[in-house]
């Protein structure tokens, strides 16, 4: 399938998903989908809750934080104790404390930054423990987004929903069924799914025995992409045939990455009672995404300068260094953009080997704050923060107290939205500054100068954005980077979620100003432009200096970004 048809089929499939998955998700969170009621009800009874018992934003946030803390602790203990637990055919010992901490935080925060090689570090049970978080963490993100949408659409409400019910419904009705169906496709295409342990192949010719890692890979792959997690079973992630066997699974992976984040804008529009409101956010997301795909694919389709210098100036296949021949240049670029802009971080090629401009496309996609379309749930709630800031400035410009969906945006809302947007750049810049200042940090990158700087910057950008996209060249498995990375991931996740939920509470308590001719329209091209402008401006203004010291200098020096 050529690149053109890949794009066309993806657009069609995502369009269908947007319309139907979007409205289905709205129905799920409105409690109108009940086909698994017999599973749902016992869960609520066990948790001592019910859909009728809604929570204030504070209780919602408290439940979320407690649940996440317990998840981190549980995952940490499972990793630390894996040597004494079953399903460890390779007899891998306990995961070291700092790495276990980093990994536990990484999967609970939907980051899936991996400072380890899956097949050489984790037992099957540990991998499955992480898969649990791959289901739970997107559900938490979606729940937060839905709570914010409820705040925007309810009037004079004191509650934003019930955290336990939202997470349960998201898992039962959305993530589990879709991941199950997708998993079957991965297995059908040849993805490995076994508990039989690694295969040992004796190579008689060379007289060595190779150990080929196997495991319950294919089904993990489905939720890895669907939940915008990105953490694969194997170190080489989606570049290996065990995880991503065919062009079809490659296409499916890209589709799964994008389907929930994009479709949530329909859910938003549906819950807001205006499909156009959702379509406006979708357009903003899609325009940014499209621009980055075009830019990055174009860059990857260019000749590799090193290969050209070696006497092969004509390279019709584009830059194939570090690419899987099964996927090729542009398709790998598409995968890369989809993965970095959905906070997934999975990879079917070596990002290290991308052309300068291609690599630039990947890191800047994350620096925009993961909004195009962003992670499951987190994409929607983050773009809503930008929308609120855009509404505020735009609303002032028409001479009215700004309002979004009839909700007045006042001091409290501006404060919370500003806080939510500020956290990520501050975390990235501050932690990178710490890392480049201390010896433990300076020891991390394999290269000196701007390249080394890029490696560190990329690591914290990826972690603070809960992306997890890996960048070769940084020895991340040190106590220093494990601990600091964990902090980046926690900040990028929970220091944003809490203001978002507070915003949901504050907005929900407000009355709705009826729309009229004098109302600032949030469903037209102008608004789309303002939202994109806000995203670009915040991204550019906060990261321009850092970017110029890393990738830009490199590019200007010897034509290489990374």
């Amino acid at each position, binding site marked *: 399938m050529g690149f053109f048809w890949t794009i066309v089929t993806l657009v069609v499939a995502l369009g269908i998903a947007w319309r139907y998955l979007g409205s289905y998700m709205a129905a799920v969170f409105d409690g109108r989908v009940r086909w698994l009621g017999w599973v749902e009800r016992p869960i609520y009874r066990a948790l001592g809750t019910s859909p009728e018992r809604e929570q204030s934003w504070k209780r919602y946030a408290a439940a979320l934080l407690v649940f996440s803390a317990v998840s981190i602790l549980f995952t940490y203990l499972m990793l630390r104790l894996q040597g004494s637990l079953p399903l460890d055919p390779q007899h891998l010992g306990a995961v070291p404390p700092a790495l276990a901490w980093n990994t536990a935080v990484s999967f609970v925060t939907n980051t899936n930054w991996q400072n380890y090689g899956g097949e050489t570090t984790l037992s099957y049970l540990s991998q499955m423990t992480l898969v649990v978080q791959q289901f739970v963490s997107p559900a938490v993100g979606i729940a937060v987004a839905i709570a914010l949408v409820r705040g925007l659409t309810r009037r004079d409400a004191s509650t934003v929903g019930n955290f336990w019910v939202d997470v349960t419904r998201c898992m039962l009705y959305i993530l589990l069924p879709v991941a199950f169906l997708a998993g079957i496709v991965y297995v059908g295409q040849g993805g490995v799914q076994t508990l039989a342990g690694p295969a040992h192949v004796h190579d008689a010719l060379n007289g060595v025995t190779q150990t080929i890692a196997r495991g319950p890979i294919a089904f993990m792959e489905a939720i890895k992409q669907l939940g915008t997690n990105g953490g694969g079973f194997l170190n080489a992630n989606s570049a290996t045939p065990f995880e991503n066997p065919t062009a079809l699974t490659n296409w499916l992976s890209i589709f799964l990455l994008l389907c929930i984040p994009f479709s949530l804008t329909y859910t938003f529009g549906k819950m807001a009672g205006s499909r156009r409101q959702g379509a406006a956010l979708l357009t903003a997301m899609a325009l940014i995404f499209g621009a980055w795909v075009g830019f990055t694919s174009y860059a990857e389709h260019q000749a590799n300068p090193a290969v050209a210098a070696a006497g092969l100036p004509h390279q019709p296949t584009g830059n194939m260094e570090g690419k899987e021949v099964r996927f090729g240049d542009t398709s790998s670029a598409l995968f890369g953009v989809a993965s970095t802009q959905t906070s997934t971080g999975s990879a079917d090629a070596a990002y290290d080997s991308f052309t300068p401009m291609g690599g630039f496309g990947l890191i800047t996609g994350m620096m925009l704050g993961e909004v195009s379309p962003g992670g499951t749930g987190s994409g929607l709630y983050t773009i809503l923060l930008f929308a609120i800031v855009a509404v505020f*400035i735009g609303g*002032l410009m*028409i001479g009215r107290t700004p309002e979004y969906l009839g909700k007045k945006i006042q001091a409290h*809302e501006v*404060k919370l939205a500003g806080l939510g947007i500020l956290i990520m750049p501050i975390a990235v810049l501050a932690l990178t500054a710490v890392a480049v200042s201390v010896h433990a940090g300076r020891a991390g990158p394999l290269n000196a100068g701007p390249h080394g700087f890029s490696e560190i910057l990329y690591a914290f950008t990826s972690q603070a954005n809960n992306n997890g996209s890996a960048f070769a060249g940084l020895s991340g498995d040190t106590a220093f980077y494990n601990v600091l990375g964990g902090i980046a991931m926690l900040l990028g996740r929970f220091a944003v979620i809490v203001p978002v939920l507070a915003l949901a509470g504050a907005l929900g308590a407000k*009355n709705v100003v009826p729309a009229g001719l004098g*109302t600032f329209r949030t469903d037209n091209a102008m608004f789309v432009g303002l939202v994109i402008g806000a995203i670009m401006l915040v991204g550019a*203004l906060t990261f321009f200096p850092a970017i110029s010291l890393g990738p830009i200098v490199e590019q200007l020096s010897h034509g290489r970004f990374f």
Partner: protein
Amino acid sequence: MPRDAAPAHGVAEARGLFDGEILRHAASASVGKLVDLRGQAKNPVMFVVLIGTVVTLVEAVAHPGTFTWSITIWLALTVLFANFAEAVAEGRGKAQADTLRNMRTTTEARRLRPDGTEERVPASELAKGDTVVCETGDVIPSDGEIVEGVASVDESAITGESAPVIRESGGDRSAVTGGTRVLSDRIVVTITAEPGHTFIDRMVGLVEGANRQKTPNEIALTILLAVLTIVFLPVVVSLQPFGQFSGATVSVVVLVALLVCLIPTTIGALLSAIGIAGMDRLVQRNVLAMSGRAVEAAGDVQTLLLDKTGTITLGNRMASRFIGVGGHPEQAVAEAAQLASLADETPEGRSIVVLAKERFDIRERALGEHSFVAFSATTRMSGIDLGARHVRKGAAESVKAWVLEQGGSVPKELDAVVGDVARSGATPLVVADGAVVLGVIELKDVVKQGIREKFAEMRQMGIRTVMITGDNPLTAAAIAQEAGVDDFLAEATPERKMELIRTEQAGGKLVAMTGDGTNDAPALAQADVGVAMNTGTTAAKEAGNMVDLDSNPTKLIDVVEIGKQLLITRGSLTTFSIANDVAKYFAIIPALFVATYPQLGALNIMRLHSPQSAVLSAVIFNALVIVALIPLALRGVRFRAASSAAILRRNVFIYGLGGIITPFVFIKLIDLILVALHAY
């Protein structure tokens, strides 16, 4: 009397935007403000600039150099320019306050003792509840209610309106204001204000902006600006370790310069000036807002409740028809009516003369020996005495009583005719010649010229207009249709008015209204924007959050526009300020690291002469743009009634796109000048 004419004096004494005296005061005040650290800290953006200036000053003293000193001076100027902008805005208010203060003379009051005797005390000693007497020529010592008597009062001191007004006990015209002067008659007034809290005292405080509170949107914007300031702190501070890692030596002075250029200093410097100027614009139109909050709310109003009389129709009704009774022909009525109105200079009176001329070609003529009888509040009639002939026109009951008094009789059909005219929404005046009732003059409402277009504009801005009238629904519908209002409330009572406001507010709408009577007070208090007429009662003035000194209800529309303009000015300058950052990055970032990485010179797309000239040009632009925008901040961004989409498009284009392009041009220009001056 012409309501729209520019008042000769009073609070709204117009001063040029850049009155020399105000500017001189402002210049010295801007230095004075520098010392008031707590005041400076209230503006987080400019406080950061101030701290930055101190940092560069220390650096300049430690390692003196032209560049370091230039940056320090321009940063200091940035703070001064911000203070200057605020001082100019405040200065305009202060000038108005001084005018008011001068007029608040130290009056002597004639206080009544409980036994009825008078004593003379200074006005400042009057307490609430005291009773004072004022006679012709006296200045009313403090705010109060007339409890006895009728007087004509010169209120020009407050309103700038030279024509005297009638004040009488009871009813809605009983309030008097301290500082105004009694022109005729004698009144007894009960003081309603504590010393120091009179209307004029409050006005002085308001125009001075002494206890100006930040408005909700201003607070929200300040927070956004603080957020934008905070985010740039790590951006700039982290450049130090980033630079070190890259082997570059990063100068603290340049980092401070970069920080100051990035944080939104333009809007930060002008924010309070915009707010003060907004209040000032209201005062210029003789409207006093009790709080900035009310001005802002005016911009948000979605429903305007407008009293029919005086707002939608000319406050004065016009003669439209003569009706004979008791067999008298129309022409006889017209002739008598014309005679009775010759000396009547009210618009009603003039309209009768005009109608008589139009209908029956009755012109002014030599009258022989005559004397005019002026309208008075007690007789409620006016007319003329021509020898033994007494012609009168006036309210039906008064004229009837006068006729009966002279032994005349009242035709049977008079009551029916008067009733018909009243029911149609018009006002009947009865005309009598001696003891004979001739007929009735019909005074009808005339819809103001241009009001229809005004309402169409309102509709375009998304504001619904509702006409409030005591008329019956039929008449109301006819006038509503003619005026082009969206809706009307007929046979309005204070309760129904209140109910309407509550319903609108429950639907999430903000409501504005005008009122003057005591029975309007609850509704004025309930409305989000309540404009009380200065001629109204004390209760009404206290309930509303604005007072219109001209008592011109149409001004509500101006108030809405000023409210909107205030927000638009803030929003547009914020956009401009943030958009400016793009160019400043392209000036400073290459300059910062070009020594370490010469390749970064490629980012110097403005081709600025040297790193130092680039940084200095950005800082100079950043400071000068504040001064350049002071007029805009004070005058407000041009506001035209249009749909929100059109306004937004225009402002995004001018201030967003313009904000990106402008600094590129001017930074380059400043750089060229610096080079031409051989500064670098």
